[in-house]
């Protein structure tokens, strides 16, 4: 199946134009983002890759509308982003599932406008999709880390957004769960074809998932390189092309991959 799409071939979902961000804390100014330009096509899967603390979450929060950049603009579907919007849902790095709601109630959180039957139908659909059948009435404190993460993804998908913004969603999971979660996410993406922006500091993860990998430098973050991953899914992790792309990024960041 052919899945990699160049941004220019489809309609553009997100345009990041000259975005800069300066934080002021205790009178000290920190330049976090410096002149970022990026376009993401509709239905595209883009990974933002960079070292911890470089400003990936900041960029994601600007695109989601939680922060306004100190310079530049972000456009989604041609409109300038003014604030958060249910058409683009964030899955937060710090775990945003509500601990006071059950699995069902969490998934139904954004569905207040629907009538009961329709809402229940959607909830059931997404409970099944992320494999939480049997846990509908459990509270998040009774779920494992991986289940909580799937729950947050399900809550995001349930409102049928155009775009998902995931901030190191699998960072806290063990490596086996992480692999399963990646496969699940790709399955969901292939089924629903949302635009996905995925933040990670894991080079392998980025190369396994993305159509394009946006490599960011350490703070102040600039875009170093955008690598198109032209390998169809499901990807063979020992294929020469995969290794070539991965090693290219390793080198770009300045790491030869010997331990």
């Amino acid at each position, binding site marked *: 199946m052919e899945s990699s799409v160049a941004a220019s071939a489809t309609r553009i979902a997100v345009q990041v134009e000259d975005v800069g961000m300066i934080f002021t804390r205790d009178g000290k100014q920190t330049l976090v983002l410096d002149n970022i330009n990026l376009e993401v096509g509709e239905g595209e899967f883009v990974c933002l890759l960079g070292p911890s603390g470089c400003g990936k979450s900041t960029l994601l929060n600007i695109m*989601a509308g*939680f922060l306004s950049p100190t310079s530049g603009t972000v456009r989604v579907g041609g409109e300038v982003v003014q*604030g*958060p*919007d*249910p058409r683009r*849902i*964030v899955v*937060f790095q*710090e*775990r*945003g599932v*509500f*601990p*006071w*709601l059950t699995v069902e109630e969490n998934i139904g*959180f*954004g569905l207040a406008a629907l009538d009961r039957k329709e809402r229940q139908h959607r909830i059931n659909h997404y409970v099944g999709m992320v494999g939480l059948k049997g846990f509908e009435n459990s*509270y*998040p*404190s009774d779920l494992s880390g991986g289940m909580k993460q799937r729950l947050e993804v399900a809550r995001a998908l349930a*409102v049928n957004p155009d775009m998902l913004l995931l901030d190191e969603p699998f960072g806290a999971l063990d490596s086996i769960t992480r692999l399963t979660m990646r496969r699940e996410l790709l399955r969901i993406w292939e089924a629903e074809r949302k635009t996905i922006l995925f933040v990670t500091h894991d080079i392998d993860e980025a190369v396994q998932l993305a159509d394009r990998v946006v490599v960011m430098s350490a703070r102040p973050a600039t875009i170093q390189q955008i690598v198109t991953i032209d390998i169809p899914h499901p990807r063979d992790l020992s294929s020469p092309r995969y290794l070539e792309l991965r090693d290219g990024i390793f080198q770009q960041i300045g790491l030869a991959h010997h331990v």
Partner: protein
Amino acid sequence: MNSLATPARWERIVLPLLVLLACLALWYFSVRWTKTRVFPSPFEVGKGIKELMHKQVLWGDIIDSLRRVAIGFGTAAILGVPLGLILGWYPAANQVVNPLLQILRPISPLAWIPVTILLFGIGDHAATSLIFLGAFFPIVVACIDGVSNVPAVYRRAGRNFGLTPVQLLLRVVFPAALPQIIVGLRIALGIAWLVVVAAEMVAVDSGLGYLVIDSRNSGKRYDLVVAAMLLIGIIGLCLDLFIRSVEHFKSVRWGFRHDS
């Protein structure tokens, strides 16, 4: 964490009983040895409790105290929780109101006694308004703190789903702050129970506090004084257990550390 020794099941019952017996014995023999006439022994207190039970006044006194706490504390919660939520939610409003709260809060509610008696006369209103004053400020402060401690990620998630500010307050901020609000209510209820006894000693002529002071003043009946104190302790314990049971409700359980 605690030391790792796990006690056997029988110890759970026997140990507290032993301690209780030891305390009673200590009390009994202290009374015997000091040959005091005034201070009652445990047996006399037991008789005192029986005597109180037989008199109808006891139930009237208990109900009076509980009613005052219910009204004073209830009003404080009904007014204090929304006010605290709003002040926590709008920092600008909090900046305006905070100095007033900070100055009124540390005024011991009992210091208001002359003023409340002047306004309401001696009677229920004076007592309930003192309880209200004692419970109101801790509740408001707990709500303000609770709201400002809600992790930003929950607020952001709520806004992401397109909630209006009011919806955000009701569906995200309130439930997220609820565990801390419950802790505040619990502290406030403890204070209310402390204040009602004091208020009844000064400002009214019924209730458990009045029973304590009246037993002393009319005939130095210290057996009844101690009996009334024990009742105050037991009822206070029941109130606390009641509010603790709220902490086990499913939707707030996450906010509390549970042993066992």
